[in-house]
């Protein structure tokens, strides 16, 4: 226990905490994007996906609280590191000049803290669903009072996995909720700006964790730099395509969870 505490207090220990939590968050944003891109498939795909996540019950809360803990640890460790860094250089240079660092690497704490605001808004928007001015057509009663879980949207399986035997007779119309949520241009603009900040954050972060784990070398440095930038842009384009397609009118509300 003492050894763990002294590790977590050391410079390299704290960096490792940031790298481990950062890697977990990279895996999350990737998985979250793959799930969300079902928005472009027929509506029942994302509705069934949302329903399946909602049906996880206790496991859903384990995942949610786990993610919260990972984000919280990532933030606490980086704030602690940043405060130490500021203390080590209280007076900067009169004419700062840079040769190797990037705007992304020098603004990690700024992009990160703005992303915290983005996450809070995003949760209020689509998880708690309390953003005013929006009424989401989210619950469509298929058959009142009866358990028709196997009838949701007219199909019983998602990616070949049977939907659980959860006693439910409603299913969230996630697809229409997303369309409604992105209809206002300023909300979509906020999401796209947020994703650009995420892109900046990841372009540095996705290469950094490899170095912090001690796995970067001259042999892979070029590939790592290019790879992390490509990954960051792919995340940006993937996520931004959703509000952009709603604003451009390419994806419209269906008014029902099912095609029939």
């Amino acid at each position, binding site marked *: 226990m003492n050894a763990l505490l002294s590790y977590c207090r*050391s410079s390299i220990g704290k*960096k*490792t905490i940031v790298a481990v939590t950062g890697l977990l968050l990279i895996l999350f944003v990737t998985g979250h994007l793959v799930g969300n891109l079902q928005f472009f498939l027929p509506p029942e795909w994302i509705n069934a996906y949302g329903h399946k996540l909602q049906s996880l019950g206790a496991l859903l809360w384990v995942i949610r609280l786990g993610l919260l803990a990972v984000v919280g640890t990532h933030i606490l460790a980086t704030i602690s590191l940043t405060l130490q*860094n500021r203390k080590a*250089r209280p007076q900067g240079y*009169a004419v700062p000049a840079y040769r190797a*660092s990037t705007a992304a690497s020098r603004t990690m704490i700024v992009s990160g803290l703005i992303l915290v605001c983005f996450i809070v808004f995003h949760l209020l928007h689509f998880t708690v669903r309390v953003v005013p001015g929006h009424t989401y057509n989210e619950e469509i009663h298929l058959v009142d009072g009866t358990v028709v879980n196997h009838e949701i949207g007219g199909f019983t399986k998602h990616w070949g996995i049977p939907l659980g035997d959860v006693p439910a007779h409603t299913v969230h119309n996630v697809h229409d909720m997303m369309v409604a949520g992105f209809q206002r241009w300023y909300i979509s603009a906020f999401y796209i700006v947020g994703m650009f900040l995420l892109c900046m954050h990841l372009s540095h972060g996705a290469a950094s964790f490899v170095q912090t784990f001690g796995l970067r070398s001259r042999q892979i440095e070029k590939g790592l730099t290019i790879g992390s930038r490509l990954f960051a842009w792919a995340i940006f384009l993937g996520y931004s395509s959703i509000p952009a397609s709603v604003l451009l009118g390419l994806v419209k509300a269906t008014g029902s969870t099912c095609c029939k």
Partner: protein
Amino acid sequence: MHRKTMNFTLRVWRQKSANAAGRFVDYPARNIPDEASFLEMLDIVNEELEARGEEPIAFDHDCREGICGMCSLVINGLAHGPNGSHATTCQLYMRLFDDGSTIYVEPFRATPFPIIKDLVVHRAALDRIQQAGGFISNRTGSAVDANANPVSKRDADGAMDAAACIGCGACVAACPNASAMLFVGAKVTHFARLPQGQPERDRRVLAMVGQMDKEGFGNCSNHYECEAVCPAEIKVDVIAHLNRDFDIAKLKSATVGV
């Protein structure tokens, strides 16, 4: 012989002592030969200051051959100045600057490098990190036969590259976080890749990182500015090596002991 001369305005950080407040003071540097090094240019300016009865600008220097690691200075925001070819300030020539330009000259800035006077900073923090573990404890005796300790070419090259560090502290000065991890990484990697460094390998990395943290250096956040200014061309690979060795040593110290 044709000698081209140049003129500059120097904006130099002047500070009487460690605790005195410092400020920038402008000095003209006139008729500077273009083949003068930056330090020789400061010598010329100092001669004029002394002739006028003014206090000369204090700056660190020793060998003036680019190998001792004594000269420092942050010139126009860059540690060891705008020298593209990885060299120390003494190997920086005035022909690299635009004639008539204003040049900012500042000390290496980091809390563990307190300013002694003007541009001179106290870099003993790096010595204390070295003393914490940057050595091997073998009795050396007379020189052993060459090849008595087989070392692979790859490790010999890696150790030699790391051993090139002259301990000037430019990595700390250039790092936006004032981190000393390139320096510590070089010292740790140098021994970790040789057989002589193995007996104390874990204790060394723990002690040196412990001292580095105690001195109040910042934490590497992978900007790689250090690598860009290092006159000995130390690569940030040594920081990866440092991270790796530290994690393993910590794990061992918590379980089987080091």
